[in-house]
């Protein structure tokens, strides 16, 4: 996200102003090297750094190992009430609108899988507030690697895989109950939906966190989103009013996490197919917005604790 601004002007050897020590061999090679590598080289470098950072993080995490099984139990417990609610409603009313219990489970499962992309790899985004307030965000700006990658590289939450597993299980059960046969096209679209959905969750959380660059407080905003997530996770968007549907489709496109994918994959009449296929577009738009906000945020950054 931070791009490689000013690559070309990087480190001309001559700038060392007669400091012999500066022009040591390794340094000179690097200064030349970066210029020839160009954009692709920069991307590869950032990617390599992200992997290295994750390795470091894992080393650190092993010191406080969270129990995988306990986390799995927690995930089941946390989602238990919602699952019970879905089953009771389906049992009493046979369906919610034209959504049967299988369809509702697909809705729920898709959401959890998209969410788990955030919770495994990008959980650190929800810590931006703390990092900014404590001033430890400064450190990211002192190293020649994208601050965004340094931030997200600082945490990996393998217990988030419990979300993925539970989501996948619910999805499998739901699909079987709904009795849908998948072709190769469905599988490809499924992959696209999950990736776009994951991107949307990450970007929204990221944008909320970026609010702290301006206000230094943002936690309550995220709880409002939690509530919206709760609604779209359990219920098909069509039961809500028009304004809400426009909100979750066009403004904060969270309906692309599960509703539109489910409509497409289950062949529901709730929305036209082209609208469902806009999922990657929504994701891309949010990525662009995030990049802009991030740049603005860094410009506006008031380092704390000083």
């Amino acid at each position, binding site marked *: 996200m931070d791009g490689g601004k000013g690559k070309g002007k990087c480190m001309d050897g001559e700038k060392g102003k007669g400091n012999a020590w500066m022009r040591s061999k390794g340094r000179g090679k690097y200064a030349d090297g970066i210029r020839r590598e160009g954009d692709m080289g920069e991307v590869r470098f950032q990617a390599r750094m992200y992997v290295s950072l994750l390795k470091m993080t894992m080393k650190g995490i092993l010191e406080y190992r969270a129990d995988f099984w306990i986390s799995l139990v927690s995930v089941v417990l946390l989602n238990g*009430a919602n699952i019970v609610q879905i089953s009771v409603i389906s049992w*009493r009313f046979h369906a919610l609108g034209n959504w049967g219990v299988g369809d509702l489970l697909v809705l729920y499962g898709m959401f959890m899988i998209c969410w788990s992309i955030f919770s495994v790899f990008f959980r650190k985004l929800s810590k931006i507030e703390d990092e900014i307030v404590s001033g430890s965000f400064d450190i990211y700006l002192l190293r020649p690697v994208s601050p965004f990658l340094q931030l997200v590289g600082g945490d990996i939450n393998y217990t988030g895989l419990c979300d993925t597993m539970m989501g996948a299980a619910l999805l499998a059960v739901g699909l079987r109950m709904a009795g849908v046969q998948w072709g190769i096209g469905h599988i490809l679209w499924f992959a696209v939906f999950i990736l776009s959905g994951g991107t949307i969750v990450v970007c929204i959380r990221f944008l909320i966190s970026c609010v702290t660059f301006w206000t230094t407080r943002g936690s309550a905003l995220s709880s*409002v989103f939690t*509530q919206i997530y709760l*609604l779209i996770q359990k219920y098909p968007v069509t039961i809500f009013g028009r304004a809400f549907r426009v909100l979750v489709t066009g403004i904060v496109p969270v309906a692309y996490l599960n509703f539109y994918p489910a409509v497409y994959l289950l062949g529901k009449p709730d929305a036209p197919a082209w609208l469902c296929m806009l999922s990657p577009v929504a994701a891309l738009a949010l990525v662009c917005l995030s990049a802009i906000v991030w740049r603005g945020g860094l410009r506006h950054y008031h380092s704390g604790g000083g």
Partner: protein
Amino acid sequence: MRVFGSWFKTEMRAAGLYRADFLLRLCYSLIAMYGVCSLWRALYRQDPGLVGRPLPAMVTYAMLAVALDIIFYPSALKSAPQNYIADQVRTGRIDTDLLRPRDLQFQLLVRNAAVALFSLLWLVLPAWLLGVFFLGMELPAGVICTAAFAASIVLGFLVLFSLNFLLGLVCFVTLDIRQITMAYSGILTILSGKLIPNWLYPEWMQAVIRLLPFRCIFEMPLNIYTGVLESGEIVRGLLLQGFWALALFCLGRLAWRKVHKYLAVQGG
């Protein structure tokens, strides 16, 4: 009473300091209210007979449940007894609570009551007003209903507090109560009538629920508010709530005394 006032003021000040947060909390409730409102409308459109209540009463029930959730939310508050005790045990500061002359259970009750009253006035009430004006919520069925509803909320709060306090004491047995807390909130959500009205459950489940205290927290006050209970039933409901509140409170007291003695023997 003075302690109550000071906690109330603290809460007030915090809300004043983080006003944006405060408004967002209200927003949070309104979205949830809008959600359940839409859900029940959709189900009602589908089959009015299966809901078992007229639509306005059902919508009112569901939305009020979500609004009351702000004061009854089991695990969000730092000052909630289970969170407070867990925190004190983990950091080893529980000793200081033992040394204080005041009774811990009572103190926590006062503090939580202050927080709850504050939330009631500044969050639940506005949410309720907005619900009445914009989301089609009904007013209480009459003066007697309103009074009974107020009493029922207080008793429901006491039941919830006593349960939370007991949950907190589990810390002394297992140290880490996070998983138990999750299970507990799950059970509470399902059996208290908050998410799904109990009359929609299968018969056998309703029978189980009738034996448990959880329905005193949400179902009772909400049923009283929506006016589905006759006056005899209201009195019986209040008595039941009173019974559970008293029993659980005393149980908590007993358990705390046991813990107190145990810790004294252990030397803190």
